């Protein structure tokens, strides 16, 4: 090692894998290569790493899929696009919860919206907010693809009805700039939850609906009824209405509520935005 080098042998040791992998930023790579010119011992280490890679790593391949599995997958793929394969379960008549859902949510907002100064910041609340944001990110990145997509709220309600033992009520879409991207089962707060992925203009909004028992186990205080948090740049609203808990995640503040409520909807004579300040 040369005294005064920006890179020393210890640093080189810690970076030898990223260097050989070609993952070092340019500046650090240049520093490392400058050090290697001067340091024979480190140069030998790097040469061995390249030799090891050449002898073994570049030869590694995934284990081949056995023929019988390949046949099964080919059969599955051949049936793609057919409703029976994708749905896997029969559809039932749609249920008419929508009107009730709108009314229930409206009552909940009217009675409970007191946001901003009364945010509860307990660990449980933080955990639920973090988990909600994480799931929202997975939904919008496509890492948690929807189980159903391109369906109406009523169809989604019905789909959940056969999969969860709590009521999932989804209001009709309020305007043409709101679409229900998809829905799926997910997990939050130690329970299975319904995850609904909306798009409002160009923004994605995730609504998670959990059973009362799971919400109760969080031990959240009743006030404020609407818990509003900002986590990792996302706006999170957590609340309970009657026998159901909800979390709503977006990057558009109170506008996210427009997936269920019209912008000009009034609650006790006041606008939605006057209650929801994120």
């Amino acid at each position, binding site marked *: 090692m040369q005294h005064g080098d920006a890179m020393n042998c210890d640093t080189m*040791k*810690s970076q*030898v*894998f*990223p260097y050989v*992998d070609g*993952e070092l930023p340019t500046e650090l790579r240049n520093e490392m290569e400058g050090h290697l010119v001067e340091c024979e011992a480190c140069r030998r*280490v790097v040469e*061995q*790493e390249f*030799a*090891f890679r050449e*002898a*073994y*790593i570049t*030869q*590694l*391949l*995934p*284990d*081949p*899929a056995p023929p019988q*599995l*390949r046949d*099964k*997958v080919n059969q*599955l*793929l*051949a049936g*793609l*696009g057919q409703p029976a*394969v*994708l749905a*896997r379960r029969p559809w039932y008549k749609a249920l008419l919860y929508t009107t009730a859902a709108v009314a229930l949510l409206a009552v909940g907002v009217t009675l409970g919206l007191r946001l901003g100064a009364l945010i509860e910041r307990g660990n449980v609340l933080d955990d639920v907010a973090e988990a909600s944001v*994480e799931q929202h990110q*997975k939904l919008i*990145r*496509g*890492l*948690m*693809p*929807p*189980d*159903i*997509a391109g369906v109406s709220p009523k169809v989604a309600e019905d789909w959940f009805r056969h999969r969860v033992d709590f009521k999932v009520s989804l209001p009709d879409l309020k305007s043409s700039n709101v679409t229900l*991207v*998809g829905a799926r*089962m*997910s*997990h939050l707060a*130690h*329970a*299975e939850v319904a995850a609904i992925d909306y798009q409002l203009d160009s923004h994605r909004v995730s609504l998670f609906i959990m059973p009362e028992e799971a919400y109760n186990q969080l031990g959240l205080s009743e006030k404020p009824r609407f818990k509003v948090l900002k986590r990792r740049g996302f706006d999170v609203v957590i609340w309970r209405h009657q026998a159901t808990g909800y979390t709503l995640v977006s990057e558009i503040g109170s506008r996210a509520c427009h997936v269920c409520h019209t912008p000009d909807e009034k609650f006790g004579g006041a606008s939605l935005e006057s209650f929801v300040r994120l």
Partner: protein
Amino acid sequence: MDKVSEFQAHIAGCLDSLHNYTLLLVRPPDDHEDLLQESLLRAFRGFDSYDPDLPFKAWVFGIIRNTHIDRHRRRKASPLEDPLNDAQSTSMLYSPLFSIPLAPEAILLRQETIEHVREGIRRLPILMREVVEFRDIEGLSYRTIATIIDRPIGTVMSRLYRGRNLLRTYLVDPRRQDGHATRGRHEL
């Protein structure tokens, strides 16, 4: 090419890799085939949301991983338990012994077979094996691996570093079961 044909072509190009990953997550006799099929159905349903900036197989790896976690949580009483976070993996990940860089000189001299190296990778604790296979077998970038496992790049680098060192320990001393590395002539 329609959506179904495009999806089929993608899958055909990486089926070995997808099968390999399900075997990593679900050890026989558990039904890794069912995990693969459920994941493929989910992937097809979400194919419209696939971002081509991510390699296709990496995108499906992420779906397989999440499907596996979902299935595990459905079956277990504790839904927050992470099926990938077994005790062995966790304890070995944080063992200072595997922060010791091991030079591959002795392994090169032994002229190990490729199959011996592959078997050594299979013996790694799952969290290390996952990133080692993603990098060294699938050739994925650190950033892509971080996206799949939903962890920072630093975590990927740490697991890769320790996994590779543990692999070398196995190769130098094939009888080793507990992965306790020793300082010696292999240290840099």
